[in-house]
């Protein structure tokens, strides 16, 4: 019997497949199909200390093997999350990750403090949202910005801290090292690549926000490369994401260095895809006589 569990910063995931923030709501939307407990964990919809309206629609555009989105962190606020969603999440789900964003450092601190005494298992610091004018990715593109938010939140909470990195940088390993140095327990990557589509009839950008974040299978090779680079650069575990849609992608991401993986866009296409990935990983382990996922994590053999 293979063991699908993985452990990150002391938190045990029954399997390494996590629903990515912003693609799975707060766990309430897919329960008609299967219980939340099937997933290793869920990274909840990105939340800010105050409720946030989000960007005007349209907020989504299809691309080749991917999508652009420009939601802009619409959410009911950290306190709403704690009150309305967290009790059910804890009851029905496995690892519950609160994805936190903000415009200024005090927002991040306030959100982390509000979550510190709750039942969330981990906090994922979103310093990579490309769709908000203030904060978001502006923190994530410099070592100073990324380091300072991480450091401030680190002091505000005892919860295990994941920092979610943007791929829209020249050298992601520098950012990874900066947040590791400031106390991050884990990094998750990649957030979306900044992209754009234009309607050739109206001459208007398809997204009302003009640009948006690219996700889906299109970005997968970029994500694998960045996870591979970061695995060599830092000593904290990595949650890999970016275009994973089938179990082979998940294994590839783990070989590159991911201890767990997140899935997002693939769920829109096939809500069952996370379960199929879990099953595929299990069969792969069985076939290759792999007892624990630690046997493959980061085990790519570069030429």
């Amino acid at each position, binding site marked *: 019997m293979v063991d699908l569990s993985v452990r990150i910063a002391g938190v045990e995931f029954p399997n390494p497949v996590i629903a990515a923030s*912003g*693609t*799975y*709501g707060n766990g*309430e*939307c*897919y329960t*008609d*199909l299967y219980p939340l407990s099937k997933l290793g964990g869920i990274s909840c*919809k990105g939340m800010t200390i105050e409720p946030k*309206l*989000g960007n*005007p*629609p*349209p*907020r*989504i*555009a*299809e*691309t080749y*093997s*991917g*999508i652009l*989105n420009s*939601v802009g962190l*619409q959410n009911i606020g950290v306190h709403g999350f704690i009150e309305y969603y967290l009790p059910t999440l804890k009851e029905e789900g496995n690892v519950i990750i609160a994805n936190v964003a903000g415009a200024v450092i005090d927002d991040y601190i306030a959100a982390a403090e509000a979550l510190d005494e709750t039942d969330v298992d981990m906090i994922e610091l979103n310093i990579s949202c490309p769709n908000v004018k203030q904060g978001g990715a502006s923190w994530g593109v410099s070592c100073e910005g990324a380091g300072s938010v991480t450091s401030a939140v680190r002091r505000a909470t005892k919860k295990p801290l994941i920092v979610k990195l943007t791929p829209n940088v020249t050298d992601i390993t520098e950012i990874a090292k900066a947040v590791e140095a400031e106390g991050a327990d884990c990094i998750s990557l990649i957030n979306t690549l900044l992209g754009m589509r234009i309607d050739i009839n109206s001459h208007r950008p*398809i997204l009302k926000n003009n640009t948006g974040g690219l996700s*889906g*299978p299109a970005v997968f090779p970029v994500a694998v490369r960045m996870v591979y680079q970061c695995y060599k650069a830092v000593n904290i575990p990595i949650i890999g994401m970016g275009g994973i849609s089938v179990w082979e992608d998940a294994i590839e991401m783990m070989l590159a260095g991911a201890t767990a993986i997140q899935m997002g*866009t693939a*769920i*829109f*296409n*096939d*809500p*069952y895809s996370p379960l199929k990935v879990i099953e595929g990983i299990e069969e792969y382990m069985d076939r290759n006589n792999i007892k624990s996922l630690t046997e493959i994590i980061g085990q790519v053999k570069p030429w």
Partner: protein
Amino acid sequence: MSYFCGKYPIIERKTLAKGIYSMIVDAPELAEEAQAGQFANIGVQGFTLRRPISICEIDKENGTLRFVFEVRGKGTAALSRLVEGESLDILGPLGNGFRIPEGKKIIVVGGGIGTPPMLEIARQTTSLCTAILGFRDYSRIILKDEYEELCAKTVLCTDDGSVGIHGMVTAPLAENLKTGDYSLVCACGPEPMLKAVIKTCEENNVPCQVSLEQRMGCGVGACVVCSCMTVRNGKEFYSRVCKDGPVFNAEEVRFGG
């Protein structure tokens, strides 16, 4: 209300007009759950996103659903090429349908590809239902026979006057509402039409429910991309067309938000 995800065989496929297709699928559990005004998010081989398509008819007895859709791009074009015996990859039924009062006269207003979702209301209300249908011109008219067979009255309008009333649906709508016989208007169609319908309903003090459209992601409320500006208790916020809609009470909708 719950939804399903699976492949359901196409048992009938028809072309209704240039680029407008009708497909009936064998999907008993979906038919059992479905309500007028709900939609399905339909997967297309080779495309990342599913295509939201409204449910046109629900036959609970035979366990079938009917979809009528227009080819708008490469995805719907691929869908349209599926034939009887192949399957539709359906996530549904989704969203909130129309809330139809029992035993009261209503008007359904459909514009263009907004006419199919109203047909199921007509099927359920028959002689209590008046249909006002608008099309660009005679070549775009669809489902006319079905409406005429089901409804107490069916009024056709075309933008170019080639068939029926020349002009928007609002003139016949206002005329009918003035009788005071109707307790509800249900509408689906392009935004300018919906705005005009809502205004006409307000002027006549008749409640109105509208079905909205927006570029959609998951279809089940998770991704929050298909937003529309709504207002409740004086507070503006973005609702999800897929989960909070697609049918909204007209007074809650703020267009262009």
